[in-house]
């Protein structure tokens, strides 16, 4: 048995692995964006966008980005495989 951890199932092909890796990096990026040291650069009340302070608007933007990314991943998976098969995630 492998003693070292494996994050992605060996059953994934190269394209799948690349897409999942990109997704994980993206979501880590979203997390980093809403905490120190990135968020402080966008933490002021000015300017106001759609009437909402930048500090508030910024967080909303990342919720929406997260949603869009998840939706794209979900649709991509659906087009790729039979919906009942779940081999495209971390399923081993």
């Amino acid at each position, binding site marked *: *048995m*492998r*003693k070292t*951890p*494996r*994050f*992605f*199932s*060996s059953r994934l092909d190269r394209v799948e692995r690349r897409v*999942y890796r990109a997704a*994980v990096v993206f*979501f880590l990026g*979203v*997390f980093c964006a*809403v*905490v*120190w*040291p990135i*968020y*402080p650069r966008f*933490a*002021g*009340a*000015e300017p*106001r966008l*759609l*009437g*909402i*302070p930048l*500090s*508030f608007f910024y*967080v*909303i933007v*990342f*919720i*929406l980005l*997260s*949603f869009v990314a*998840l*939706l794209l*991943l*979900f649709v991509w*998976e*659906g087009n790729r495989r039979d*919906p*009942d098969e*779940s081999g495209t*995630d*971390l*399923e*081993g």
Partner: protein
Amino acid sequence: MPQWIAVLAVTLAYLAVSLLVGLVSGRRASASTEGYVAGDRALGFLVLYFIMGASIFSAFAFLGGPGWAYSRGAAAFYILAYGAVGLVPWYFFAPRVARLGREHGYVTQAELFAHRFRSPLLSGVLAVISLAAFLPYLTLQMEGAGYVFNIVTEGRIPVWAGAAIAYGVVLIYVYRSGVLGVGWTNTFQGMFMMALAWGLGIYLPLRLYGGVGPMFDQIAEAAPELLQAPGLDGSGEPWSWGGYSSSVAISVLGFSLWPHYFMKIYTARDIRTLKKTVVFYPTFLIFLVPILFIGFSGVLAFPGVEPADAILPTVITSIELPALVVGLFCAGALAASMSTGDALLHASASVAVKDFYRAVLRPELPDATERRLIRWLVLVIGGLAYYFAVASELSLVYLLLLSYGFVAQLAPLSVATFFWPRATPAGALAGLLAGGLVTVVWNLNPGLQWQDIHPGIWGVAANLITLVVVSLATRPMDEAHVARFVVS
């Protein structure tokens, strides 16, 4: 007719509908533990979406969210920040959990971990941690329901009676219908809350300031510190970035592992349903935006409200609104409290019986007895939480502060379960205990604080190190057994 009677009538009508939905829905479940706890693993997207949505729309969000925006300003954005990625881990590990659940018949979180590590003791420890984290939350939801009744009837219904009425309804449908009662009432309650959140969130700034934009313009003028992230801390001083960021981090670590949500993974009909729930979860979060508008709307219009959590009911009852609207608000706030409280109640009873009583004390418990025990415990735990909510002088606030720190301790365990074959039972247990201990010690000693970092973060670090060191020092587990759980 006095306004409060009309308001009460609307609220009671809402409770009656909730009860009806809760009772009718349970008739479709099989009379087994799997039916009662995991809905026969047949829940569809709509119900799962609203069950998870209710996780955000608790009494905390409905009363505490506006309270935070009102008194601490931008600090309230942290709820949105952790939600942005909070459920994302599910997308990657939940399919595996669901599959293992089907294969081995799990309905709770600890069943999976205890099986992976072949340790009933681990199950017992997890049950204790879960119950310690659940009880203060449940108590808080009950208090919230009591206050809502109290405020809208202008004090005529005391808090204890309000909590008893709302949670009497919850007890009946959870006892009767199990997870399906929780799911379908949450769906009804969730739609209700969404409509109400947007309605009030747009209407109140419009009525009080002439719009959302003008409202923030005026706040920026009069109280700019509220709009500058990370806002203010509990005492009104600017909050530190260390405190804000580590609060977001600890919430992200723990959010997807709260045992009562985790066990909903088993209820999903299939993998696509599960993933779709994760995908659409952020849309639920957007409904928190108008909730925060409501809190900000009170800043200049109603200064000095104490406690800050009362800002929403205060605004609602201070401006002239038709009884129907106030009644709907009241029902919405109850929905927020009940939709979280019911899941907590249902999970507490299931965890206490399955993960503690059955796993540690009575492995040969027959299914029918088990289901009966769980239902009884729903009543017992409901009664206990009610006692703490209205009768006890003992404050559970301290436990509440600890609960997120505790739940985050499940993160290293989960990672080890799925990704590290070398992790051993001794390592898992020692990690949990070390993490819990460090969290408590750091909480008790403000002198150990550094940069305001959340005590749970130190706990997770200690947990991780202990888990690795102890695992490497103990004998590896049987390979064939571990291979069933670990990604390979």
